[in-house]
């Protein structure tokens, strides 16, 4: 499904990613972990399209996507949930999700503006899809509330709903648990497991090692920009290179979870 091949990215001589490869199978839930500064965000942004690799390639279902701008990748089925608040203020929750579905719809922007019957039917379908997506993340009761001022946990879930509305082939989650309280983390983990169970391929980039090991089928571990381990949660957590990478800088953190 997603194939990252020997991708490198450097910023002024410092390699943020060096020869990173990973291969995510259809239906897989892949975790990416690593201590601070390991290059997780860089890798994420390379896949999302906010950065371009200096070397290597990224392909989705066999087609190269590494030169495409972010909005085209989104239309190709790469849906993204960033950790920051990335919502449309001044719109209701439902409208936020509908914008996500609309951008993926077949009707062109201009023809949709004139609303002939076919578009009106599509509009109804999109509304139904959006409501369904809100329901999946448990926010349907708040559909008509404005998006601003939501608690962080609900903002994340709203972003997930918006991403789902585009019927993504691949869902990218960028540190979805950061800043969340324990109860919210559990809810989010349940949601991720549920979505993957329903067939969504997910790439989870996360600082919280405990969360990733409990969710992911396979885990890719980055350190200093390079892949140092790749395998099942059990294999990865017992890998001496991983333990060493987390000692010192991240030992407290890893032990904590």
């Amino acid at each position, binding site marked *: 499904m997603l194939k990252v091949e020997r991708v490198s990215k450097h910023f002024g001589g410092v390699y943020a990613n060096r020869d990173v490869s990973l291969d995510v199978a259809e239906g897989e839930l892949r975790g990416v972990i690593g201590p601070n500064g390991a290059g997780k965000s860089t890798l994420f942004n390379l896949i999302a399209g906010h950065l371009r690799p200096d070397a290597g390639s990224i392909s989705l279902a066999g087609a190269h996507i590494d030169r495409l701008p*972010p*909005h*085209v990748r*989104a239309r190709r089925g790469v849906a993204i949930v960033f950790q920051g608040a*990335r919502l*449309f203020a001044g719109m209701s929750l439902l409208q936020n999700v509908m*914008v996500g579905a609309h951008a993926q719809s077949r009707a062109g922007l201009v023809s949709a*503006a004139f609303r002939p019957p076919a578009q009106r039917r599509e*509009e109804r379908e999109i509304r139904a899809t959006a409501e369904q997506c809100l329901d999946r993340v448990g926010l349907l009761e708040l559909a008509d509330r404005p998006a601003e001022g939501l608690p962080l946990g609900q903002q994340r879930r709203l972003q997930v709903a918006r991403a789902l509305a585009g019927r993504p082939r691949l869902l990218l989650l960028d540190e979805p648990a950061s800043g969340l309280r324990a109860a919210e983390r559990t809810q989010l983990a349940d949601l991720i497991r549920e979505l993957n169970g329903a067939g969504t391929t997910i790439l989870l980039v996360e600082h919280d090692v405990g969360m990733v090991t409990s969710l992911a089928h396979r885990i890719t571990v980055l350190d200093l920009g390079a892949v140092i381990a790749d395998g099942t949660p059990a294999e990865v957590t017992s890998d001496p290179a991983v333990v060493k990478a987390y000692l010192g800088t991240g030992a407290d953190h890893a032990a904590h979870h």
Partner: protein
Amino acid sequence: MSEFITYLVTGIALGSSFALIGSGFVVVHRVTRVVNFAQGSLAVLGAMLSASLLAGRLPHVVGEMVTVVVCGLVGVLVGVVAIGKRGTPPLISLIVTLGVSMLFSAAIIWLWGQDPVSPPGLDGFTTILGAEVERQRLLVLVVTLVAFAGLSLFFSRTYLGKALTASASNPFAARLVGIDVRRMGLVAFGLSGVLGGLAGVLVAPSNALSFYSDLPMALGGFAAAVFGGLVSPLRTLVGGLGLGVAGQLTAGYLNGSYQTEVALLLMMVIMIARSRSFAHEEAK
């Protein structure tokens, strides 16, 4: 009293055109963060083009509609020049639009000459509270109100409108869901062309416009837009009307040549008074 009514109606008509031009500024600024200074030139282009088309025996309404559509297309072209290159900083785009407006002045002199042009409008007068009022001036207000209602429906009801709002609200997130934010910027420029053209078509029958009118029109519109914080079309309408009336009263009771100064003064006062909230908008 009847003198006052006349000034009031004249001011409202002129203010309506400021409001239309101002909402063009707002639409472009919200989506692209660019202040499009070619906005006034599009009003002048609208006036010139409608005069030529109507003189070329296109019937009323059709002539005006064609003009507005052409101004919309020209607006898109301005957008292509100003923001077409990916990653152009808004400040550079602003300078580009200034340059474009100078080119417009040259093109307008070349095509239509230097004399003020006044296309035919709605003839006749109506009496309001004892004052004789040109019907055209009332038409300006009515069309402006309809245009604002249309804009509001467009933004709240159509997908294109929502995609524009989404791009304005959070360009990063808009890209994430697959919206081509740059194309939305071009749509905004086109819309501002339509609004500028409409302003020119409406105001020129009673206030003749020349190549030299682009600056006062742009300033009036910009002052109205500043009153709306460069984000709110509705407050831009209020600001435009207020500015038009203030300008006409100044012209009527003091001196006609102070009108532009009134616009500038008002803009300065508002900017200083609201500088805090501007900083806030930027921070968002």
